[in-house]
């Protein structure tokens, strides 16, 4: 094929190729695998899509990422071709209109795109859900999430300081992809709970702020164990009507399994206890004047008030002034127990689970689950 079919750069040697990618602004700051046509063809052949199939359309800026461009970025990220179906499914998930990608991709909040993988594909491609699952060391985890970020950078133009206006961002923005440790879960796999069969593979995506380690070593009863989780979730730093992801360490999961707690009961307990008095929010500057004007935020703040949402005050400083009764109004994280997604992950030893708050001080974006094509 002629070079016209493959727009790009001609280079002399591999090192020059790596440097050229830096010079063009095509990397995430780490060296990339130079994407040559044979490598990209091989990547594309790893999935079921034609080269011109649109895997992701971002409507605000009207950008369509085809399988071909996704494959170029997957090569650059270091993916093997057998990872490509997971990359494509994750792109379809973040491109779901409900996910409204433009916000988490560009906001000051600096969200990472979390990808949780379930089903047989985990073992087939070596996706890791055990010890150090959020850390370095496993190619599939490191490169699938990285491929998404490279698509955002190169395909959607989400360059830091330009379209991506993250105030700080965080390391999960390089890559945040892991398998659920299904064998360590007290319950059915996450994707089964979300409507898929255990024999299917699926990705679940979430726009995540940086995670909190939930360290609990001396509790085994659920009502004691979960106090630390609820406390992290109720932290004023990230308290919002948004969603939560809990990744249960196997040790913590075993305590819940032994006590016979279901996923639903655990979600309900956490929702009920992850709360703060409205007065605390006001004292911490967490209630903005605009919150009292919008139906959704009023509902979040005043749903549990004795007089209900109708009792929400108005006035120039009602959002900031602690009013009589504010100590007794409970404000929960999220709007319902369904806003708490729980999965299992981590090594056999250690009482270290994780809580990831959603991006944004508002409702943020929903969890989206998509099947990974065979």
């Amino acid at each position: 094929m002629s070079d016209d079919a493959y727009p790009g750069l001609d280079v002399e040697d591999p090192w020059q190729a790596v440097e050229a990618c830096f010079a063009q602004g095509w990397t995430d700051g780490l060296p990339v695998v130079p994407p040559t046509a044979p490598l990209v063809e091989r990547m594309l052949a790893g999935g079921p899509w034609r080269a011109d199939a649109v895997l992701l359309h971002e409507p605000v800026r009207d950008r369509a990422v085809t399988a071909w461009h996704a494959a170029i970025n997957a090569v650059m990220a270091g993916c093997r071709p057998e990872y490509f179906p997971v990359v494509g499914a994750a792109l379809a998930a973040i491109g779901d209109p409900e996910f409204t990608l433009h916000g988490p991709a560009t906001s000051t909040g600096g969200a990472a795109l979390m990808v949780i993988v379930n089903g047989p594909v985990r073992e087939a491609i070596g996706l890791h859900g055990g010890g150090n699952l959020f850390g370095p060391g496993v190619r599939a985890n490191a490169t699938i999430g990285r491929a998404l970020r490279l698509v955002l950078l190169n395909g959607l133009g989400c360059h830091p300081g330009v379209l991506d206006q993250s105030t700080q961002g965080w390391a999960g923005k390089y890559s945040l992809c892991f398998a659920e440790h299904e064998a360590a879960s007290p319950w059915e796999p996450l994707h089964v709970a979300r409507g898929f069969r255990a024999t299917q593979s699926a990705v679940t995506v979430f726009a995540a702020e940086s995670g909190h380690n939930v360290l609990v070593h001396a509790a085994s009863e659920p009502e004691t164990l979960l106090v630390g989780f609820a406390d992290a979730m109720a932290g004023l730093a990230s308290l919002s009507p948004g969603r939560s992801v809990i990744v249960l360490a196997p040790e913590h999961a075993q305590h819940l399994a032994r006590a016979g707690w279901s996923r639903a009961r655990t979600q309900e307990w956490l929702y009920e206890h992850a709360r703060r008095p409205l007065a605390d929010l006001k004292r911490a500057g967490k209630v903005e004047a605009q919150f009292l004007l919008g139906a959704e935020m009023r509902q979040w703040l005043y749903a549990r008030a004795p007089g209900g949402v109708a009792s929400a005050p108005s006035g120039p400083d009602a959002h900031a002034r602690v009013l009589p009764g504010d100590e007794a109004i409970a404000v929960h994280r999220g709007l319902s127990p369904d806003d708490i997604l729980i999965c299992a992950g981590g090594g056999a030893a250690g009482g270290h689970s994780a809580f990831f708050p959603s991006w944004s001080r508002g409702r943020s974006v929903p969890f989206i689950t998509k099947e990974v094509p065979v």
Partner: protein
Amino acid sequence: MTRILDPTLRAVLPRTAARAPRPSRLSGATLGLLANGKTHGMVFLERVAEHLRTRHSVGDLMRVTKANASAPARPEDSALLAKRCAAVVTAIGD
């Protein structure tokens, strides 16, 4: 010699739409204000409009605030802005 492929959409992006003709004057013209839906977008745009009123005597204002800052403007809103306004100013304000 090895060719490395361009991972951006530069080569395949659709050509951007042609620019609308610039209004020759704003005096008496209807001005659209399109806030992106963040908390203070319209607050900021009201100041801009005030400034344009003082300096250019703009006429009526048509205000639209997107329901979701992460989503495109509704096509019917965009169509109405295009139909009624000589110029539209859009902004984010957080």
